[in-house]
């Protein structure tokens, strides 16, 4: 066995193997070469694979993504690192207007990945803590994945690199070194578009992803004592959503709670809730409920950020409310 690796090492291993095995793979990003990346995800890759495949770029997010679009059209498999995913906003136009609609508009595929650390809980404040998924959820032609486990961090990245579409890979920085697990030997790609039942349960379904998966699993343990049996579905892919898996779980438990780390309004959670309301209404025993962040920027001070983020206590309270509906 490969032994235990961290979530970050799983990302690193997937990248390393891809560079090793596939000449088309190419990394672009800021400080990824000589420095090895702000979180050391790409450490040693410049030395091993050279500056033509591990490209340190200027602080030009839009040009990094644009350049990847061009290289992808030419048959390369570029992986762009956003130093923090918050900076993806600087490349918004290239992503939503160039990469995403390219195949629909003129039939030319754009196989590329944009990855970067997302999420809060590390006191990163307004520009190093964001969850930008919902901005992109709206855009046809993109795929979005957000791994919450070591195996998925590895397997979804492998799948993303070999997907013929632009894939946004949102890794959660809170999990980087906190999460440790076995990586299956000769690990396989994890198919994009498939959710995973992280915990089977009878009474209530929690739909979540990323770091919030672990909040849900911990809450499930605590709620067992109350006799509430939570089902936890790890969405893993946010676009396209695994609607069948979501609806199947609702049909089983008749209660649905969506837990995400985004501001509430216009969130991925809202889309999940809408689909449940639209397609599983007859099965519901209570309102589809969301537990997300309030509609504020991400605050800095620990007391403020803790108040902002969902946590086990907040989830347990919400679940009890919904279970008693």
């Amino acid at each position, binding site marked *: 066995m490969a032994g235990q690796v961290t979530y970050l090492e799983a990302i690193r291993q997937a990248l390393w193997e891809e560079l090793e095995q596939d000449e088309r793979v*190419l990394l672009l990003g800021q400080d990824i070469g000589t420095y090895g990346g702000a979180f050391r995800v790409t450490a040693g890759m410049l030395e091993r694979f050279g500056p*033509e*495949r591990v*490209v340190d*770029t*200027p602080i*030009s997010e*839009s*040009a*990094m*993504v*644009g*350049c*990847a*679009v*061009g*290289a*992808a*059209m*030419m*048959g*390369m*498999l*570029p992986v762009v690192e956003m130093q923090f995913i918050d900076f993806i906003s600087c490349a918004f*136009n*290239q992503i939503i*207007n*160039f990469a995403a609609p*390219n*195949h*629909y*508009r*003129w*039939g*030319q*595929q*754009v*196989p590329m990945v944009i990855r970067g650390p997302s999420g809060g809980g590390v006191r990163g404040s307004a520009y190093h803590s964001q969850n930008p998924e919902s901005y992109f959820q709206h855009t*046809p*032609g993109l*795929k979005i994945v957000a791994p919450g486990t070591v195996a998925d961090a590895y397997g979804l990245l492998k799948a993303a690199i*070999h*997907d*013929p*579409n632009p894939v946004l890979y949102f890794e959660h920085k809170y999990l980087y070194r906190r999460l440790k697990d076995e990586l299956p030997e000769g690990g396989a790609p994890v198919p994009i578009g498939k959710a995973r039942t992280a915990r089977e349960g009878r009474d209530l379904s929690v739909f979540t992803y990323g770091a919030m998966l672990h909040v849900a699993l911990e809450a499930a343990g605590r709620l067992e004592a109350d006799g509430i049996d939570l089902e936890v579905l790890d969405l893993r892919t946010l676009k396209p959503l695994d609607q069948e898996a979501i609806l199947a779980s609702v049909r089983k438990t008749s209660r649905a709670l969506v837990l995400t780390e985004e501001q509430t309004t216009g969130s991925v959670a809202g889309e999940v809730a809408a689909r449940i309301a639209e397609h599983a209404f007859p099965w519901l025993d209570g309102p589809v409920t969301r537990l997300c962040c309030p509609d504020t920027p991400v605050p800095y001070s620990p007391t403020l950020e803790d108040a902002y983020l969902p946590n086990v206590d907040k989830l347990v309270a919400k679940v009890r409310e919904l279970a008693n509906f």
Partner: protein
Amino acid sequence: MAKLSKNWGPLHPAAEEPVERLAKTELPAERQLDLYRFMKLNRMTEDRLGSLYRQNKVVGGLYSSRGQEATSVGSAYALAPQDFVGPLIRNLGVMLVRGVKPREVMMQYMARSDSPTGGKDGNTHFGDLSRGLVAPISMLGALIPVMVGVALAGKKQDKDLVALTYIGDGGTSTGDFHEGLNLASVLNAPFVLIAENNGWAYSTPTSKQMKVRSIAIRATSYSIPGESFDGNDVLAVYEATKRALDRARSGGGPSLLEAKTFRMKGHAEHDDAGYVPKEQFEEWKPKDPIERFERHLLGNGLATEEDLKRITAAIDEELSSEVDRALASPMPPPERAFEGVYAEGVV
């Protein structure tokens, strides 16, 4: 480094004297006639599109490159077969030189089923990598970093290719113009950017886009060669582009070229360009790139009046058939609207 002269001259130089003196070239007569044919094809295709527009056959807007044909044709003609180019809305001539048939563009404008995008997109917004063509998007500047990526991939793949794209005077004000050129420069990409300074970005004159007197001077910011030339002299365009392409191909990195030209129509067909002072049209009319090239060909004994008439008549005949074929294509089936968002399979 840059062959930057201190004296940039006026933004748009005054009319030449009646004797037509175009840039020196080694191109033989037969290839110069090729340039002539493509410029005429460019203009006459747009004239046909104008007729289709007035017959309400064009679904969206119609964009004209009248007066700028030399820039598109001369630059595209300098490309090697393996090169890639990303034309903008006023670069129909580039597409024609790369082998696009007029009917493809007509069907695009008329949103027909057999257009290259099957009706999903319009005008010149289509590409075909087998002809080295990358489709633009409407957001100006965006193609610059994309074509830098094409150039880098080509370098990595040992394809000996150069990537070329265009920007207008207005588009130089975008962030992608700077990000893209800077990235090309630091990575020494085999890339050429031609800035078409046609005096107007929709209704905004160049003087409101920038204070510099020449776009080419901005090359110094990237420590790359910059060259400004007469964009209405097809030979000057060809020669300058060729120099930049050769330099890029031999490892000399990117260049920024500026073609000084003039937009002889509005931003699009609906726009009467009432904001452009009449004197500007009058000043540029005698500098029409096609008429100047005709005077050059005739004056230097490279062609006879008969030759030029024959070329024009052949194009006219070809275009009649192209219009018929384009009109014969139906509108796309509605269900196509839902297809093709994602590419399928594994790469």
